[in-house]
């Protein structure tokens, strides 16, 4: 028995939700507007800003000053690379935790998550020294590894919660049919886990894309991603709102668009599979 919803109530809901949604979205909307204005116009009152002429000036300046594409590709390589490297390690671990649980499984999971609480600044010097020793400074390889390690606990945990939803009977049936461990994972589990894995990948790409401490401190010219690109537009001399807005839009747009297009998987991913 579906409840009737009056049009009036629906209207109120709509207005309220759109209002709140727009307030939350407003800062992003506003930098998008400012990025198409000249520096002088960008600091005027909002109404003057809206009526000021639109221009691509700031994007042109940013394009001229920075190698956006290089930073963009570094971001792509680092976030995608670290996520897939993470999957390689995490899938087997999550599998064994989900299907051959022991008394300590939960403790191990919690311990993994707790490694994320260490303050990164505290270990900057040790890690920097290690990276020098290993020749990994300013290399995509080194940063990929670091990003993978940072996000590994989250990947393991998410996959674990997804795998647990897969009924054990299916595995038993497969085993009865003579499937070995390898076949079991490849042909039975993986197909069932694809949606979960997709969500995991998506969320971790976002987390890696936005990581701003290690990506800034362990890179120079070669491996610097978009976080370093942004650091050259924050608080320079003179007016900078329009350039900062343009650079910000360029840095967040790719991931924003990716996120919007894959909203369904992302919503699933954000809930860590722990909420149905």
């Amino acid at each position, binding site marked *: 028995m579906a409840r009737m919803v009056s049009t009036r109530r629906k209207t109120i809901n709509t207005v309220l939700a759109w209002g709140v949604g727009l307030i939350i979205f407003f800062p992003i909307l506003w930098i998008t507007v400012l990025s198409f204005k000249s520096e002088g116009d960008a600091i005027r009152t909002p109404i003057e800003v809206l009526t000021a002429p639109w221009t691509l000036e700031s994007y042109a300046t940013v394009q001229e000053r920075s190698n956006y594409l290089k930073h963009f590709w570094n971001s792509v390589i680092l976030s995608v690379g670290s996520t897939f490297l993470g999957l390689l390690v995490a899938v087997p671990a999550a599998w064994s935790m989900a299907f051959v649980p022991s008394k300590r499984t939960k403790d191990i999971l919690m311990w993994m998550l707790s490694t994320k609480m260490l303050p990164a600044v505290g270990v900057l010097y040790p890690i920097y020294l290690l990276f020098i020793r290993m020749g990994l400074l300013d290399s995509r390889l080194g940063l990929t590894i670091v990003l993978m390690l940072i996000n590994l606990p989250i990947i393991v945990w998410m996959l674990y919660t997804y795998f647990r939803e897969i009924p054990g009977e299916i595995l038993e049936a497969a085993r009865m049919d003579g499937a070995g461990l390898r076949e079991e994972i490849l042909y039975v589990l993986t197909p069932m886990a694809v949606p979960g894995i997709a969500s995991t990948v998506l969320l971790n790409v976002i987390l890696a894309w936005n990581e701003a401490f290690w990506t800034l401190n362990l890179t*120079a010219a070669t491996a610097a991603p978009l976080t370093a690109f942004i650091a050259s537009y924050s608080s*320079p001399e003179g007016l900078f709102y329009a350039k900062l807005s343009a650079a910000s839009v360029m840095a967040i747009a790719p991931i924003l668009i990716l996120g919007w297009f894959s909203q369904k998987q992302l919503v699933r991913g954000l809930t860590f599979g722990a909420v149905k």
Partner: protein
Amino acid sequence: MKLKYALRAATALALISGAAANAETITIATVNNGDMIRMQGLTDEFTKKTGIDVEWVTLEENVLRQRVTTDITTKGGQFDIMTIGMYEAPIWGKNGWLVPLNDLSAEYDVNDILPAMRDGLSADGTLYAAPFYGESSMLMYRTDLMEKAGLTMPEEPTWEFIREAAAAMDDPENGINGICLRGKAGWGEGGALITVVANSFGARWFDEEWNAQFDTPEWKEALTFYVNLMNDYGPDNYATNGFNENLSLFQQGKCGMWMDATVAASFVTNPKESTVADKVGFAMAPHKDGISKKANWLWAWALGIPAGTQKEEAAKKFVEWATSKEYLELVASKEGWANVPPGTRQSLYDNPEYASIPFAQMTLKSILAADPTNCCEKPVPYTGIQFVAIPEFAGIATEVSQEFSAVYAGQQSIDEALAKAQEITNDAMEAAGYR
């Protein structure tokens, strides 16, 4: 064992990829200030001339500091040239971390560089970084508002006169503040400003025994004067205003006076950015009546070469090029003399074309008035004017300036802040083994 191989392979890979790239590519870390961005734009001229490619790492000042300091102290070798300030250059040079610049070519004419700049970037008489641009502090004021108030700015105003003028020009109804000064926390921001103000009231950071001096009447007088001046005639939110915030206020015509870096002069007189471009006058940084030291600081952004770089020769070529007379002419030919990086070379000020620019002579005079080896009315054990050239200073002064900014925001009293500053400084100096 396997891990070791993997690491070795990774190292080898990194080395190969490094070697495969053009051997003549240098990496330069720099700050995102206007003059450096211009230099970045002119890189092609350098490459054309020498065949050396340049990779730029342009970062915001705080991030840059953190980045290059980590790299130099750990000998990370990420950069072939680093943009550093007058604070870092002597400390790093003394530690042997920078390549000495004592074999610069004859046409570079190192003696043309202003002595104050050379001294500030040297340790034990050896130059460790070449100044890209230099600055002192000076007073910028609105000629139209002064006229309206019926006042004439002397060339060397006292703080008492500044207060009077601020009172006369202050016009909250029309959004004009009598005076704008930095109050933002950070040793290079509000910390530098309050230190030179204190110097011009006869105060100092340390006595000859490295005892902090925040408990002296001079400091209290200086801080009290500054806080009263700003509360009465300054912008409402001066506690978070730094160089950039004040620049924007002044350009929009919201300040009667502004004492800050001499490099600001070219921004406030640039009609493209400033609404008051043709109404700006310049005077020396103020001082308290009877005190010989003015509130002049001295700073340079300079190019240094980390010791141990594989590309020392190429790096030196770039440093020479970017800080040469030729570079100044190049900028002048493309962007006009007003946009030349100022404050480093005597020949620039001898050039009649440059000398005709309204702020040129006052800039030079301000720089010459600053003596980094003798900052204060009373004797001190340190070099530097708005900073103390010891490694501990940046940390101490940032915390001290945060206490002061809390006063500006009305969150604690002057006495509380001075007491905390005294404690922070003495604790840190004790830990470092000075006392």
